[in-house]
């Protein structure tokens, strides 16, 4: 494995992100919406702070998911379309190096983006609420990043299955919506179904990644005490397993793909 090449590709993805407009547009949009809601004061003081935090975090979640999926989905198809994959693979680089470099780059780019968003959130929270908890804030950021890691790996694998970037991004975004909105209730639905539907739904419930595990928004919105570090580590391990699973699929698919 060529770690130097993996790192070079990762820094390329980060450079691309800050030279494109997507991140700036989404950040400004999040900031403007949050600040304009923050300026309105038609609830009592406690209510408005929670309300503001909730809006800000929801916007951060939506923006970060969009950035992660769109960035990861276009990486390999863009390389193939622009033919830059040819001089790249003509260097002492394996296709596994390319997938890992792209993954690492997207992860770092999303990490930087999240940090900017969460610092903004901390600033907004601190200006309205004196009980800002740094540990909870850090745990929410870390778990959010772990969730994005799964999505990035999923989008990279998807980009080698679906020909168009837009169709891959749409499918990954829909899958994310399904997982965040419905998957957590799938066991209850399964319980009411006859066989074999019950087994199928239960299998999906246990096999698909439960992204809601990584949603610690309530923790900071309601100023709850921080979660213990063992559950956090366990959740990070859970995220790593799914990330590795999707990356293995991406590597296998990329190895089989005809180039040029």
């Amino acid at each position, binding site marked *: 494995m*060529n770690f*130097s*090449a993996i*790192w*070079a590709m990762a*820094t*390329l993805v980060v*450079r*691309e992100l800050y*030279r*494109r407009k997507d991140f700036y547009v989404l950040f400004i949009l999040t900031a403007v919406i949050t600040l304009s809601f923050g300026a309105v004061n038609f609830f009592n003081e406690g209510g408005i702070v929670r309300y503001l935090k909730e809006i800000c975090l929801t916007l951060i979640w939506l923006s970060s998911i969009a950035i992660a999926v769109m960035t990861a989905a276009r990486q390999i198809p863009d390389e193939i379309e*622009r*033919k*830059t994959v*040819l*001089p*790249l*693979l*003509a*260097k*002492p*680089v*394996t296709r596994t190096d390319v997938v890992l470099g792209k993954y690492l780059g997207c992860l770092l780019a999303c990490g930087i983006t999240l940090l900017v968003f969460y610092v903004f959130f901390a600033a907004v929270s601190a200006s309205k609420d004196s009980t800002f908890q740094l540990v909870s804030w850090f745990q929410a950021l870390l778990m959010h990043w772990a969730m994005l890691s799964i999505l990035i790996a999923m989008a990279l694998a998807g980009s080698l299955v679906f020909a168009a970037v837009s169709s891959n991004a749409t499918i990954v975004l829909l899958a994310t919506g399904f997982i965040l909105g419905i998957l957590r209730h799938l066991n209850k639905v399964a319980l009411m179904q006859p066989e074999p539907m019950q087994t199928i739904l239960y299998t999906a419930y246990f096999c698909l990644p439960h992204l809601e595990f990584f949603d610690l928004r309530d923790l900071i919105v309601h100023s709850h005490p921080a979660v213990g570090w063992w559950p956090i580590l366990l959740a990070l391990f859970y995220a790593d397993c799914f990330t590795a699973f999707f990356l293995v699929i991406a590597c296998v698919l990329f190895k089989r793909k*005809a*180039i*040029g």
Partner: protein
Amino acid sequence: MPPIVQIDDLVVEYVSKERGEGVKRAVNGLSLSIGEGEVFGFLGPNGAGKTTTMKVLLGFMPPTSGSASLFGTDVRQPIARQRIGYLPELTYYYKFLTTEELLRFYARIFKIPKAETEKRINEVLKLVELEGARKKQIKTYSKGMQQRAGLAQALINNPDLLILDEPTSGLDPIGRMKVREIIQRLKEEGKTVLFSSHELGEVETVCDQVGILHQGELKEHGPVADLVTKHGTHLEQIFLNVVGYATDSESPTEVEIPKEESP
């Protein structure tokens, strides 16, 4: 001295995307050897198998049978590509980078130390005449400048072998001349160059050896002067003769080809 490029009885087959066409043979029993310091021109009409052969050499696709090696190492090993530079036909490099950044990116892949990278960047930018535009983003470049930036990336590791796939394709006469001059300079530096082209005059000027590929088979191979003497005509007519174009009576540009001498 062992050859830089060695191809033995290479066969490449692929499944055609056209319905009902099945398996197609792009390269059929190609054997070739290129020695150190040689400039080898790969000629052939579109679909002759030139790019496919290059793809096998670069490890992009595996051979169906036969073998290919670079510097004595099987082309399927990534290390075989440590000492080569490759310029594909019409590539659109990362638009958001400057040439300097592009070259630094590729240098990092080769694990070239920082100080040497800067020295190498200066050298190749001077060679391809892009020193003045080194800090401009590639998206602002003309086609010719992009192609020269491509040549620069192919040279960043100071390769011993250069593989150039139609390096002058799509360029205006000045752009072609500049690329040709660069290849000449590389030849003078003793680099081994394998390049494909449709420009027969260019091949005649630059190459020590040529190979004419048609329907996946190497039809003619040897030094340009030897081929010209053997056939008693210039390279363009030899090429037309080999690909069977001149014998077509319906051809709009029918030319008279002298009978082939027996070898």
